[in-house]
C-alpha cells in the first residue's frame, strides 16, 4: 500500500497546473464571461492535452490512464476555475464522436431533473440525456431551450428546456450510465477540491498582505483558525476524492458507492465552506465583484447539486452503512 501520487501522477498534475497557469490565469477566465464561459479554441487545447481522452485506451488514440489520474486533472482544472461544459467532455470522450478531439461540445442532463435547467445548453452541439436505461444524445438545436437571464454563476450560463426531449441516439446502456454517474460524481468532487484549494490560497495571501491594527490580519488567531479549518476540510476531501478515484479503478480496495458518495459530499463541504470563509477573510472586499472569491463560491454552489446534493449523498451513505 502506498497512498501517495506516484512519479507519473505527480508529473501529470504538474503538467496540467503549468498549462492552466500559462493559459488560464483568472483574468483570462473572467474575460470569457461575455461568451458564456465557452472558448472552442481552449477546448481544442484541452483535447490536445489529453483531458477528454485520458481514460480511452491508447489503441483508440487515448492516453490509457484511469479515474485516479482523471481526478488529478479535474482538480487542477478546478483550481483554475476552468469554465465550460468540462464534465461532459471528460465523461463522453469516446462515446460521442468529436468530443475526444475537442471539436464537439456536449452538455448533459438527467431526464427527470424537475428544474429542466441545462448548463451551457445554448452553446453546445449536443445534449446527453441520462436516465437509468442509459445515455441518449440529441442535437442541441433540436431541443427547445430558453436562456435564463441571470445565472447564479456568471461563467455557468443556464438554459431551460421548454419542450419534451426528442428520442435521440443511444450511446450507452444501463450499466454504463451507472459507471458514468459514479465517475461524474468523482470528477465534480475533484473539481470542487481544486476550488477549495484555490480559495484557501487566496485567503492566506490576502491575510498576509492586508494589515490592520499594525499587523497582518493573518496573525489574528480567529482568522488563523478559520483558515486552519479550510485546510482540514481540504485534506479530508482530498483523501476521500483520491480514494474514490483509486476505488473506481480497482473496486477490490473498497466499496465504490460509499467511496464516491463520501468524496462528493466532503468535496462540496470543502469547496462551499472554504469559499465562504475566503469571502469572510477578505472582509468588505470579499463582497465585491472585483475579488475572485465570489466566482469560486458561485462555481461551488453551481456544481454542488450535480450527481447528488449533500443531503442526498448523506442519506445514501447512511443507507449503505445501515445495511452492514
Amino acid at each position: 500500500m502506498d497512498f501517495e501520487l506516484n512519479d507519473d501522477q505527480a508529473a501529470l498534475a504538474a503538467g496540467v497546473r503549468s498549462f492552466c497557469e500559462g493559459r488560464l490565469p483568472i483574468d483570462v477566465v473572467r474575460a470569457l464571461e461575455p461568451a458564456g464561459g465557452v472558448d472552442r479554441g481552449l477546448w481544442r487545447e484541452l483535447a490536445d492535452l489529453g483531458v477528454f481522452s485520458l481514460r480511452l485506451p491508447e489503441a483508440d488514440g487515448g492516453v490509457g490512464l484511469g479515474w485516479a489520474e482523471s481526478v488529478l486533472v479535474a482538480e487542477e482544472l478546478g483550481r483554475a476555475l476552468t469554465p465550460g461544459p468540462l464534465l461532459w467532455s471528460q465523461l463522453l470522450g469516446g462515446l460521442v464522436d468529436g468530443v475526444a478531439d475537442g471539436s464537439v461540445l456536449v452538455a448533459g442532463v438527467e431526464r427527470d431533473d424537475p428544474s429542466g435547467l441545462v448548463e451551457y445548453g445554448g452553446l453546445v452541439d449536443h445534449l446527453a440525456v441520462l436516465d437509468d436505461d442509459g445515455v441518449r444524445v440529441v442535437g442541441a438545436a433540436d431541443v427547445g431551450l430558453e436562456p435564463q437571464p441571470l445565472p447564479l454563476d456568471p461563467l455557468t450560463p443556464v438554459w431551460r428546456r421548454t419542450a419534451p426531449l426528442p428520442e435521440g441516439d443511444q450511446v450507452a446502456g444501463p450499466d454504463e450510465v451507472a459507471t458514468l454517474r459514479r465517475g461524474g460524481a468523482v470528477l465534480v468532487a475533484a473539481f470542487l477540491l481544486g476550488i477549495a484549494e484555490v480559495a484557501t490560497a487566496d485567503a492566506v495571501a490576502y491575510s498576509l498582505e492586508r494589515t490592520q491594527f499594525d499587523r497582518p490580519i493573518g496573525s489574528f488567531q480567529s482568522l488563523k483558525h478559520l483558515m486552519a479549518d479550510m485546510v482540514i476540510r481540504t485534506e479530508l476531501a482530498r483523501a476521500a476524492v483520491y480514494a474514490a478515484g483509486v476505488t473506481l479503478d480497482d473496486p477490490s480496495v473498497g466499496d465504490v458507492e460509499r467511496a464516491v458518495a463520501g468524496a462528493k459530499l466532503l468535496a462540496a463541504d470543502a469547496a462551499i465552506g472554504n469559499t465562504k470563509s475566503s469571502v469572510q477573510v477578505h472582509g468588505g472586499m470579499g463582497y465585491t465583484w472585483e475579488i475572485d472569491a465570489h466566482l469560486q463560491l458561485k462555481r461551488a454552489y453551481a456544481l454542488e447539486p450535480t450527481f447528488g446534493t449533500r443531503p442526498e449523498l448523506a442519506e445514501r451513505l447512511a443507507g449503505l452503512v445501515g445495511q452492514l
Partner: protein
Amino acid sequence: MDLRYTPQEEAFRADLRDWLANVLPDLPPQPSADDWPARRAYDTGWQRTLFEGGYAGVNWPTEYGGRGATLTEQLIYLEETTLAGAPYIGVNFVGMLHAGPTIMAEASEGQKAAHLPAILRGDEVWCQGFSEPSAGSDLAALGCKAVLDGDEYVITGQKTWTSFAQVADWCELLIRTDPAASKHRGITWVMFPMDTPGVEIRPLRTVVGTSEFSEVFFDEARVAVSNRVGLENDGWRVAMVTFGFERGTGFVSDLVETGKMLQELAELAKHVTRGSATAWDDVSVRRDIGQMQAEMDALWALTKRNLAQADRNGVPGAGGSLVKVCYSELLQRLTEVAMELLGRAGLSRTDVGDLPSGAFVEERLRSLSFSIAAGTSQIQRNIIAERILGLPKEKPWTSS
C-alpha cells in the same frame, strides 16, 4: 496511489488474526476502572503476552527487540487488535511510545540496556512528568526546579496531568536546570525513579470519576546526574526528538473504535422507537450518520496518506494534527447525536433495560478530553495555520 495490501501485508494480517483468536479467549477479566494495581497487572500482563507472541513493539526497531514492522504493518496491527477487542496499551503507553523511543534516540548504551528490554517485556512502567499547573499548552514555561548538588539534582516543584503516576516505576521528567536561560534552554530530561523520597502523588479525579492522572509534588527529591539523558540544559530538544515517533499511526486505534461506535449508533437508531416508527426512519438522523460515515472513511484514507508521506520523508507532516482535530470533534458530535436518540435514557451511565445506551453516555463524557489532551484543538489549529499555511505567530503579549 495504491490502496492494495501486498501479499506480505496480507500474511501479516492473517497471522495476527490467528494469534489474537488464540490468546484473547484466555485473557483475565478486566479490572475495575479505579483499581490501579489491578490495571497495572492487567496491562503489563498483556504486554508480556505480546512479547511472548512476538508482537511487543511492532513499531520498535529490531535492534531493541521490536518487530521493526513497516508503517502499513503497524496500521494493520492497530486495526486488527482494536477490531478484535484486544486490551489497549494502557499503562505501557509512556514507556512504549515516548520514554522508550527517547531512550533509543538519546540515551547511553548502559541506559538503553537498563530500561528498553524491561519496558518491552512489561516489567517496567513509565509516566510522563512534563506539564505543570503553569505550563500546559506553553510547555516550555515549565519551572520545576533542579539544583546540582555533587552528583545529584535536587528537585523541588510540581507536575500535573501525570497519567499512571500511582503505578509507575519511572518518570520521564523535565526539570529546569538553568533558570537564567531563555525558556526553551535550561531544561533537562532525566529518568526519575518514582520511589524516590520526597515525592508525593495526589490522584486527580476526572469528569468520568476515575483517576487517570495525578499531581506529582517534589520536595527536595534527589536524582543521580547519571540518570540524565542527553546534555544538561538540552532537555527540550531531547523531549521533542520522539515527537514524531508514531509517524502517523497515533490515532489508528481511536479511529477504528470510533468507526465501530458509528456502526453501533446506526444500530441504536433502529432500536429506538418513536411512536410507530424508529429513529432510523427520521431522515435527519440518517443524514447525520451518513455525514459522519463520510468523514470517518475520509479520516481513514487520510491516515493512509499520512503514512505514505511519513514513509517517504522519514518524519510525519502536520497531517497528525488534522486527524486529531477531526476525529476528536467527530466523536463528540457522534455522542451528541446518540444523546438526541436516547433522550432520558441518557441519565444513566449504564444500559437502561435492553437499550445499549451506557457506552454512548460514557463516551460522551470521556470524549471531552480528546480535544484537550496532547495539544488542544486550538493549539492544533495554530500548528496547522503556522506550519502548513505559514501564517505568522501572534505578537507577544504585553500588559498595558
